[in-house]
């Protein structure tokens, strides 16, 4: 009897360890693979508008009524300046950390302006509860990323197919470039 209890508990321990190991470590590995793929097929620190083929290659479970642009970033060498040109349709910008966390989102109504600048910079030494941005310096708002690598994704609503090119063209007016010091 005691032997059965021992082995049952031991079996449960192996199960629990496996469970925790997968839940805690698999997301990091999976998201690293996602970003490796994004960095491999899109230029770093540069905004590109995604066509259908690129959308399918870069994003998982994309929205068919949304046009996308992406800027994979690496700010280890310095901040990134993102010039945003906001179209006259639903639009949202999301900043993702390397863990896949959406650390900052701004939509067209919240922005209040048609043209904005964002500076994305490192945030390694700031406590977690203070990491949520943003600060403003004139017309530039500052977002701090907890990881040096990640991605900025622009989304814009496409009410129907004939609007797609116009909306993609509007997304193409935004850019991201390393800050020149």
């Amino acid at each position, binding site marked *: 009897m005691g032997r059965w209890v021992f*082995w049952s508990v*031991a*079996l*449960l*321990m*192996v*199960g*629990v*360890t*496996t*469970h925790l*190991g*997968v*839940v*805690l470590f*698999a*997301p*990091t590995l*999976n*998201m690293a*693979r*996602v970003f490796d*793929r994004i960095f491999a097929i899109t230029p770093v620190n540069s905004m590109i508008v995604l066509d259908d083929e690129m959308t*399918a290659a870069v*994003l*998982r*479970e994309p*929205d*068919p*009524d949304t046009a996308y642009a992406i800027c994979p970033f690496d700010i280890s060498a310095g901040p990134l300046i993102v010039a945003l040109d906001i179209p006259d349709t*639903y639009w*949202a910008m*999301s900043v*993702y*950390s390397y*863990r*896949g*966390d*959406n*650390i900052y*989102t701004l*939509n067209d*109504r919240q922005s209040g302006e048609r043209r904005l600048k964002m500076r994305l910079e490192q945030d390694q030494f700031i406590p*977690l509860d203070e*990491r*949520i941005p943003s600060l403003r310096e004139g017309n530039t708002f500052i977002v701090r990323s*907890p990881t040096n690598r990640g*991605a900025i*994704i622009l989304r814009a*609503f496409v*009410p*129907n197919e004939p609007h797609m090119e116009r909306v993609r063209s509007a997304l193409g007016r935004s850019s991201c470039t390393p800050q020149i010091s």
Partner: protein
Amino acid sequence: MRRLFDAVLFVLAGLAIGYYSVDIAVTRGFSPLIVENGPWRLWVKEASADADPYTRAHFASFGKLGLTRFEAIEFRAETDAAGRPLDSRCVYIVNGTPLTARWWNLTVYSPQHTFIDNRANRHSYNSDEIIRRADGTFEIVLAGTAQPGNWLPTGTGNKFQIVLRLFDPAPVFREVPGQVSLPTLERTSC
């Protein structure tokens, strides 16, 4: 030899228990990490920096870079109202009342989270293009073969899932997502 066999069996059994429990918890989710509303399920902390490990594992399992609920709410259905898995060999009717958001859409995905190829090249209906009744309500037919009205093809691959996204939704969708009025999802034939 017998001891080695027992040891291998023991480890394999432990791994199986671990992986099976992960699959259940991460694929299906559980309360309070998910909120259920009829056949619709919502992972409350999707894409959030303070997401729990299970939510994180769920979306990382298919590599999704999602939106937090402050920007968009994403309800997912893999079963009909009676709890039966959605099957492309059946016909389903989605009936809804106006949804309060900047815009919304309903999209069909394969179990692998990809679009389902179809001749109509249609994967979704959004709030701007959908044909509504005079009172603002709408009906969408989910079926493998062409249907009149708002038809969303479900292919021939048997299983599928649908995602209802509300962008910039009314606060009530964030506050009590389990109690808001969402479209019904009924199987009409099979």
